[in-house]
């Protein structure tokens, strides 16, 4: 049986192989990343892209929800103040309606209610970071203005009925605003401004038409309940947002763990493999040295 006289070349080839393997493992160990190129784990690389996509989306939502929470809180707080003002207006109107006050007191109440109307209009024109939050989609200009050309005065709305929604990563939508027209002019029967303007007109002369005033006071009560209901929409959005934020944060944590498992180097396994490679390398080197050092052909042994 004949033998390849240059088999040592093959052994040296194997030595290159073990050295390359050592380098690869050392690089993984030092960087902490196990997948440094697509070919090391093609399917894993694809999964990694999708996981990072989700994680990033969750992160982005968390930031957006912080922005939106501020706006919702301002809206909620404004409507809370409106409710207080209207409660006070109803109390004033009730006292004016019971017939125990004189004309100048009635007029004084009329003025106070007018002051409350200005206050409510100012709240209806609340702006957050330069945008009017009760204007629907037309957030560039203050939506409510009152014209005293007629008596009673008329408060008109220049916004629109647009409702903005924030879409969550899971596709759910959260309502971000309630249009001012809906809250404060509530389709005529629930109109806050309508009731306030009517009451101001009722008390302006000092003489109270009891039936009219009672009916207008009842209208203001109805309008106040209506505003409270609208406020619930904002409160619901805030609750939904909090729940969504915490769900998203949980999801982000889980996804990050999955992604880390996929990409990060498993240190114990790599250390073991590295130590094996080093052992193999040392063994190969010893064998080669041994084979080359001894005189290994017949010529050295023949007598001259």
């Amino acid at each position: 049986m004949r033998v390849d006289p240059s088999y040592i070349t093959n052994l040296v080839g194997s030595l290159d192989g073990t050295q390359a393997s050592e380098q690869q493992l050392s690089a993984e160990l030092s960087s902490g990343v196990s997948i440094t190129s697509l070919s090391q784990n093609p399917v894993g690389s694809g999964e990694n892209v999708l996981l990072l996509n989700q994680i990033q989306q969750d992160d982005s939502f968390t930031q957006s929800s912080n922005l939106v929470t501020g706006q919702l809180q301002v809206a909620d707080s404004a409507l809370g103040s409106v409710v207080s003002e209207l409660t006070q207006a109803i109390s004033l109107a009730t006292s004016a309606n019971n017939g125990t006050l004189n004309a100048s007191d009635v007029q004084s109440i009329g003025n106070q209610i007018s002051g409350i109307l200005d206050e409510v209009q100012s709240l209806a024109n609340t702006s957050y970071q330069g945008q009017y939050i009760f204007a629907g989609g037309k957030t560039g200009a203050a939506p409510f203005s009152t014209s005293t050309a007629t008596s009673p005065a008329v408060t008109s709305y220049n916004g629109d009925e647009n409702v903005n929604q924030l879409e969550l990563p899971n596709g759910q939508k959260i309502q971000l605003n309630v249009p001012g027209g809906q809250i404060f002019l509530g389709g005529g029967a629930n109109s806050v401004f309508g009731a306030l303007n009517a009451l101001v007109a009722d008390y302006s002369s000092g003489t109270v038409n009891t039936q009219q005033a009672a009916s207008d006071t009842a209208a203001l009560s109805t309008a106040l309940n209506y505003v409270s209901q609208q406020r619930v929409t904002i409160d619901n959005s805030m609750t939904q947002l909090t729940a969504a934020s915490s769900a998203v944060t949980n999801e982000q944590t889980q996804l990050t763990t999955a992604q880390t498992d996929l990409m990060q180097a498993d240190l114990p396994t790599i250390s073991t493999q590295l130590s094996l490679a080093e052992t193999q390398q040392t063994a190969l080197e010893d064998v080669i040295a041994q084979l080359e050092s001894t005189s290994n052909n017949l010529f050295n042994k023949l007598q001259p």
Partner: protein
Amino acid sequence: MGTINSALSVTTGALDADQEALNVVANNVANANTTGYTEETPDWQENAPIEVGGISIGDGVTETGTTSQRDRVLEERLDQQQQLASASSTRLTALNNMQALFTPDSGSSGATAGDIGSDITSFFDSFSSLESDPTNNALREQVLSSASTLAGDISGAASSLNSQSAALDQEASGVVGQVNSLTSAIAQLNLEIQSTSPDGDAGTLEDQRQQDLSQLSQLIGINQVTTENNGLSITTTSGQLLVSEGQSTQLTTGAVNGVMDFFLGGTDITADLASGGGQLGGYLTARDVDIPGALSSLDQLAYGISTSVNAQNNAGTDLDGVTGTPANPLDIFNEPAQAAGSAAAMSVVMTNPNQIAAASAGNGTGDNSNAVTMANLASRLIVNGQTPINSYSNFVSTLGATFTEVQTENTAQTASVTQLQTQNNALSSVNLNDEAAAMSTLENSYQAASQVFTLLNSIMASALNLGEETAVT
């Protein structure tokens, strides 16, 4: 007397034969490390016997030449495997350069700069953020800046792929010169071999020819056909004639549609060469199959995103109340005419963040519904029937899988080459132990023959001095 003389001449013949055989051994040992040298063994021929007085007497031995220890079939098999291994390792190098452009994002500390996957996500996320406050200038600027990053990274990757293609072009052209000089040399050797040893192995000339064939098969895929009178025809793997007897045909190159094509005679054989093997096959497969495949995926991605986002932006109203029209469009990206080339040309043309149409057409500028729709483009099938991120995810998986596939092939082919090489070496390489043993045998044989000569010489002297006191010793 006559028989003593003839015995002497037989002995001297033996001494000559041994001496020539020792020369062969010495030549083998001297060439032990010469690449492509095949071990030679001396040929012994018994001389025709002589009839003397009805008796046949042998006439000694002649050394008639040498035989190279060579297996043509084994060498041809080795060449074929080298073609395959050479092609796959060249292609592997090219694929490795390609995959280096798309290193996976480890995700440990924010996105890796240049990772297209995270750019896609950031871009569509910027619209999600815009939903929360559509008139906010900082958020609008963020949309434009993430668009720029995305366009920059996609066009950067496409342009790197184009550079790699140009480099492969150059390397492939460089191979042509080497191929041509080898085919000319082989044709020349064909003529010499056919004239000097048409019936048997041509020894050193054959060594050279086999060496040239081995080098040629690493460069280009070939088929070898032995012809009469120890001749050799060489064709490419798909049958085009490269060498026939003493004639060699030169490969030429010419630019066709911006890349180098390869011609034999007047025929364009580029496609055949790509599947043929050898380094040239590897370069051409990478240049004409792998890189265009990757570019096509990137083009689809760029085209899908650019056209869909532009169309949606033109369907809404911007911060100044303007809606895009065909005559005056509100495009975010430069609108590509077709998918091919759109990756390299992808860029952001919008400079004014007010022109992002967050509101739907006709609605107030505080409306965010168009921003919602734009954010949702991320989950619509806008890139060749896939979502943008799925398209990118599949692209990187496929590229990685192609590399792994070629790597597996290459490992198997290289192992096969090693095995065949070992077999070939065992047969044809100079084994110093064998030479030492042969030398020792020949030395003994020479000593024996010279002993016989001495003996015959003294017998001759006795015969000459027959009966006389010795005057000749």
